[in-house]
Structure formats: C-alpha cells, structure tokens
C-alpha cells in the first residue's frame, strides 16, 4: 500500500513560456512548483515553451520546492514531444492532464519508461500526478490512484471538469462537490496526496480562505495556486495548529523511545498509538517544519 504523503500545501502554476516567472518561481515559498506546458501556453508556442522549460528546469534554483512539469495530453500533437524533452531531466513529477482511465496511465508510464531506458534512468525517481478533469476521470479515479506506484498524487481540475459537465462553475462549488469528495476518497484509499483545484478570483481573499478551509475539511492535502498572493492564505489553512504540532511531537518522540526499547505499540493519555498514527504525526511535523530532537 502506498504511503507517499509529501508537503504539498500549495502548488504554484507557472506558465512554461514565461522566463521571468520561471526564474522567480522559487522565491514565493510554494511547496510545489508546476511549470505548465499545457493550458498556459498558446498552441503556436508549444515548441518555444518546451525548449525553455527543458533548459530551465534543472538550472533555476527553486529552493525546497517540488518541481513538476505539466505536459500536454498524448492525444494532442504536443504530448509525446513534451515527454521526450522533459522525462530525461527527471523533474520531481510529471503532471498529466485529463486522465480518464488506468489504461491511459499504463500507456503513459510505458512511454515514460521507454524514454528512461534509452537514457539509462531508473523508473523510481520521478513520480506522476494524475489530473482528474472529466466526468470519465471522476468515474475511474480509484483505479487511476491505486494501481500504479508512480502515481503519488491526484488533483482535480475544476474549470475543465465543469466544462466537461456542461455546467457553470459557481463560488459554492456545488457542481464539483461530488467529484471533489470521490477524488479525495480515492486518494485516501490509495494513501497518496490529493490537491484541490485553483481558486480563480485572485482578488477574493475571503473566498479563497473559505474554499481552502472546506477543501482541508473534506480531506484535500493542498491546493493549486494561480497567483503567488494566494500562497500565504493556503499555507495558513493547511499548516497544522500549535496544539496539533505539540501532540504530533509527543507521539513521534515517544514512538522513537519505545521503538528503541523494542516496544511497537504503546499508549499516550490512555490512547493506543500504532503505526498509522505515527505516520500521521510525522506528516504533521513535516508540514510544520518541526524536527524531533
């Protein structure tokens, strides 16, 4: 069973054909940077963006951020060229748009692994983020999330999903609420991260906070960001409270002491502490940048 939880409170989208924004991408403190070759790039600039991202991805210092590249779908004239250019550079992850089935992921991974073989690269370093943006993707999301070790996060693309459903996106998110919860459940069952869609109105900070709090409440582990201004609010919501951090610290510290003494299961304040609770506590400490001394 996968347990690939990472610190991915925020995922900042950066248009792949904008060198200034790519250069500055790391300074805003997002947990994850997404260099976008798909929707943020005009159809007649796909070659330019691909070459630019290829040249920049391993040269620019993005500090501690996870660096992902969103490629175009393989059904477009751009997808294969994107993979040929980006896979040899092994960013942290490839994000694949409009993922609709496990068969599609298998085909994608087959192509990625052939490219890796040609370059003498392992199949284990770079992961895959599957974007769920269609009704069919929502239907098949559990297979997409669970069947492949390399899929270590799934995300929901709210704008494309509403378009696919022929509905209008509303601030209350009513139209995509079922999809959100189904995607979260697939991620939880697969023990991987699940990232909420962007909040499109960069001037509505209250709305952003409200939507982010809702996303956290139903199980999302992070949220996509279209403007660096949104990062602070999203981090504020997803960063654990002081009480949660204190509790997690105590659990991890006592777990280590008990493990050293050969004790696997123990109790704190009368509650049994076992491996899943320790894993959750370690995740909270990672989010809070706290190290147990």
């Amino acid at each position, binding site marked *: 069973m996968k347990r690939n939880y990472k610190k991915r409170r925020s995922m900042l989208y950066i248009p792949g054909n904008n060198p200034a924004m790519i250069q500055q991408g790391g300074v805003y403190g997002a947990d994850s940077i997404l260099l976008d070759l798909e929707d943020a790039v005009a*159809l007649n600039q796909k*070659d*330019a963006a691909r070459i630019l991202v290829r040249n920049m991805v391993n040269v620019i210092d993005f500090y501690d951020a996870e660096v992902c590249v969103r490629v175009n779908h393989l059904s477009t004239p751009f997808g294969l060229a994107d993979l040929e250019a980006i896979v040899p550079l092994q960013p942290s992850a490839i994000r694949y748009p409009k993922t609709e089935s496990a068969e599609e992921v298998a085909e994608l991974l087959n192509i990625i692994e052939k490219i890796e073989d040609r370059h003498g690269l392992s199949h284990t370093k770079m992961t895959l983020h599957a974007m769920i943006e269609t009704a069919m993707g929502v239907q098949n999301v559990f297979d997409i999330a669970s069947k492949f070790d390399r899929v270590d996060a799934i995300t929901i693309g709210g704008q494309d999903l509403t378009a696919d459903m022929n509905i209008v996106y509303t601030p209350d998110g009513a139209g995509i609420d079922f999809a959100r919860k189904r995607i979260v459940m697939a991620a939880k069952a697969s023990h991987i991260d699940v990232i909420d869609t962007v909040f499109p109105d960069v001037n509505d900070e209250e709305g952003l906070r409200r939507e982010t709090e809702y996303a956290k409440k139903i199980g999302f582990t992070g949220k996509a960001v279209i403007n660096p201004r949104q990062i602070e609010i999203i981090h504020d919501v997803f960063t654990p409270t002081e009480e949660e951090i204190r509790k997690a610290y105590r659990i991890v510290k006592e777990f280590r002491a008990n493990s050293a003494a050969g004790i696997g299961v123990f109790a704190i304040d009368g509650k049994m502490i076992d491996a899943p609770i320790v894993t959750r506590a370690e995740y909270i400490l990672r989010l809070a940048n706290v190290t147990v001394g």
Partner: protein
Amino acid sequence: MKPKIAAQSGTFESSDVIFLIEPLPDNSGRKLEISSTVMQQFGANFNRIVLEMLDQYEMTDIHLIAKDKGALEPTIKARLETAIKRSLDEQEGTLK
C-alpha cells in the same frame, strides 16, 4: 545550413529576448544585429552564446536580429534554438 524561412521567437518582456531570423542570398555569411539592455555588462557573453549556437547548427547566409531584455543564458539558448528550428521549418510538436 541556411534558413528556409523567416522566423522569430521570444518576447519583448523583461528577462526574455526576441530573435528574428531571415535567409540571406547564398554566400552572404552572417549578418548579426544584437541589442541588449545589459549590453555593457553581459554583451560579450551574449555574443558568444549566439555565435556558438550558430556554429553548432552550422547556420550561414543568415540575418539575425536580437533584442534582449536581460535574459539568462538558458533563456537565450532556448529562444535561439526555437528560432533556428522554426527558420529551418523543423519545429516539432506545435501548431505553426
């Protein structure tokens, strides 16, 4: 190789560079017009990058105009590679 068609890449935005390439008559060599907002500090480096890439692609009979707004080396190389491939009509995975 010489350009088949006129082509351009990049933008006039800060930290970017725009390249325009057009073919010249046979045996014309290279005609370069390079301007940069950081020419005084980084002009020699910019010229070196351009010449090395033109050599790498064996480009001759070419008129190249570059207008730089402080692009980093990977950006300069990306934009010039894009312009050269477009001028050779060899760009892949894009709409023209």
